């Protein structure tokens, strides 16, 4: 074995360290949606507030946020004021009431404010399953053509909005123009 070969372990370790250093900036729990770039899955589910049946047609042509929430979800309570604020600023938000009961859900919105244009009632979680929802809260950014552009798992707060959604949202809006 010549002298050069003795340096191989060092070189390999240096490469490894670079990866580890880069890795420290990453979040291993972050899970991008498998549906980014794909169409929002088709569905036919009731609305929360009235008797009508909803489908993707109901938000076609608009850039919207689809927010997955439920009354059993503690973090959703923390997230809700932010959603109210966004709705106030003109952001169109659609609710996906996930594996919940309609009556308590209606009450919940009455107590905390309703930022949603309308709410899809997904009691079995079937739409959630097709979307790749892993729990609540989750928020999807959908463009005017019905393509999913981004997904956030966890609370949507100001920092997250600024970092992950704001720019994308503005860009999609301007594309739509």
């Amino acid at each position: 074995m010549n002298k050069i070969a003795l340096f191989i372990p060092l070189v390999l370790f240096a490469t490894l360290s670079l990866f580890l250093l880069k890795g420290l900036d990453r979040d291993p729990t972050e899970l991008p949606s498998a549906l980014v770039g794909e169409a929002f899955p088709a569905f036919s589910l009731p609305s929360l507030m009235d008797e009508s049946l909803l489908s993707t047609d109901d938000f076609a042509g608009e850039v919207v946020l689809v927010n997955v929430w439920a009354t059993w979800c503690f973090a959703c309570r923390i997230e809700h004021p932010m959603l109210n604020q966004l709705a106030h600023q003109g952001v169109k938000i659609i609710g996906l009431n996930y594996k919940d009961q309609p009556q308590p859900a209606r009450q919940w919105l009455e107590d905390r404010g309703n930022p949603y244009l309308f709410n899809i009632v997904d009691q079995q979680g079937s739409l959630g399953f097709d979307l790749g929802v892993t729990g609540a809260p989750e928020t999807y950014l959908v463009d005017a053509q019905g393509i999913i552009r981004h997904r956030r798992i966890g609370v949507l707060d100001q920092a997250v909005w600024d970092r992950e959604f704001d720019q994308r949202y503005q860009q999609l809006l301007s594309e739509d123009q």
Partner: protein
Amino acid sequence: MIAELGHAALIIALCLAAIQTVAPMLGSFMGYSNWMRLGYSLPLGQLLFVAVSFVCLAAAFLSDDFTLKYVAQNSNTELPSYYKISAVWSAHEGSLLLWALILAGWSAAVALFSRTLPLLLGARVLSILGAISVGFGLFLLLTSNPFERLLPVAPLQGADLNPLLQDIGLIVHPPMLYMGYVGFAVPFAFAIAALIGGQFDSAWARWCRPWINIAWVFLTLGITLGSWWAYYELGWGGWWFWDPVENASLMPWLVGTALMHSVSATEKRGVFRSWTLLLAIFTFSLSLLGTFLVRSGILTSVHAFATDPERGVFMLAFLALVIGGSLMLFALRGPAMQKVAAYSGWSRELMLLINNLLLVSAMTMILVGTLYPLIADVLELGKISVGPPYFNFFFVPLIVGLVVAVGIAVFTKWKTTEGRLLLQKIPFPLVIALLSALFIPLFLGADSQLFSYSLSAALTLFLAVWLIATIASDLREKIGSDRARMAKLSRSYWGMQLAHSGLAICVLGVGLSTAYDDSRELRMHPGQTAQVANYQFQFVGTDKIAGPNFTAHRGHIRVLQQDQLVTNLYPEKRDYNSGGQVMTEAAIDPSLTRDIYVSLGEPLGNKAWAISLQVKPFVRCIWLGGLMIALGGLLAAIDRRYRRRSKHSSAIRGGA
């Protein structure tokens, strides 16, 4: 007050470690023997102060001092005392203090038991151990201080120790594991000292060897205990998940095993010097890497400690310094390879080389698999998961190769072995192994209607019987019918055979329990019976009971075989008072030939429960094998030739 004392003691220990790093090393270059001798007394002082610090932290736990952040996060007034003590090392800061304590302990041991070492070498070894202590001391004091106060607002009650950790497993597994991880710092220090001094002969290997063996024994025990603990604690009957934290312990073990075998060749024949040095560096590097992976938050694991990016950067810097520095030193000053070969043909040296290759390949594979999700993420290749199917795919063939090689190796001689000799000795064990593999699975899988011959069981039996038969064969040859010859065999030899037998038993346990495991998850009402394997399980019902810090549903299941009562089992579903965490406590009827494993799932309403019934043949052999391996290593470590006082020791000591 006690916490401040502990904090101060830690600072003093750090100062002592700093002196221990600098003085003996400088002394070794300048020839100041009194500076070098400092290396022998400072570790004792360091041990004293780290121990004081540790005791202070334990005292804080026992007195429920929730003004300390670490205590508030990991303890509770209702926690039984013995768990309060083990809670000291249940999370990041405290477990680091345990690391530091054990490191101080090993350094002190080296200082006490190295009087026969040349002063130059000993001083340098202790200096390097001091440097590592400095690293950990700084890490503790700068980023992970267990004595941090929560004042002015301290909680009245602590968050409690995670119920999964309220178990004897926490009392024994981490200390045993750390003894192993940290223990490999000693051969590492020996390797660096050797590289600095330019002396890597058989004498160096002989001094280093007992330390390697003992550290390895602890690591073996630590891993075995961890697996056993997971088995009975987690409630599903699994015992190895290829989780990143588990892999972090297996990798240094594999390389440590290679080191242990490599150093024997270096000692006896002066070969593999580069290998031994490199393996010594690798083993401890993997310990450090493991520590980094577990505590930096870089990988997802059920076992990972709570994380902080600042800590990750510090650890990575420390890693880069220690590992990078040592590998650089190796590259620059590593021994030149020998031109003249000392061995040929089917020699023991060749077998050891194959052994090294297989073990290091296994370690590399595990490293790649464990880090790949990270690598893929950094390179934007997507979020990939790597789990048991990947690891088993590669690990199983490697172990097959290893076991076959170990069997052959038993018959080989140093320097060279006549092929004729091997051809004479191999057929007998081979035939017995093949026969076992062919016929035994016929009985084990027998069933009047549904015959199932398990190929994996056949392979397992082949390997285990092959190994045991080669060992038995060698023993027979060495002892024959002459009992007197038995006494002449060294402890080293017995240790080797015991450890290799342990490997066979472990393989047997792994293979047979996987092949013949029978598990059902059933919906049962009180009074109902089910049959799994050849046992009948009768669900009697559940009671509500209360423990020291929990309430629980306690099931009662009667296990019968051919209408005879085998045992009563009482699995529990516990609800802990402090956090509302629900935990499954499985009920096990252990035996060497099979474990019966029962646990409660969810209540299904109307007094019915989802119950998991498992019959796991030979699973206990896995840990029995692990114990045998550890015991074998211990025997080898206390071989008399390491403890013989050398007549030349006084002449060597003090020399260059």
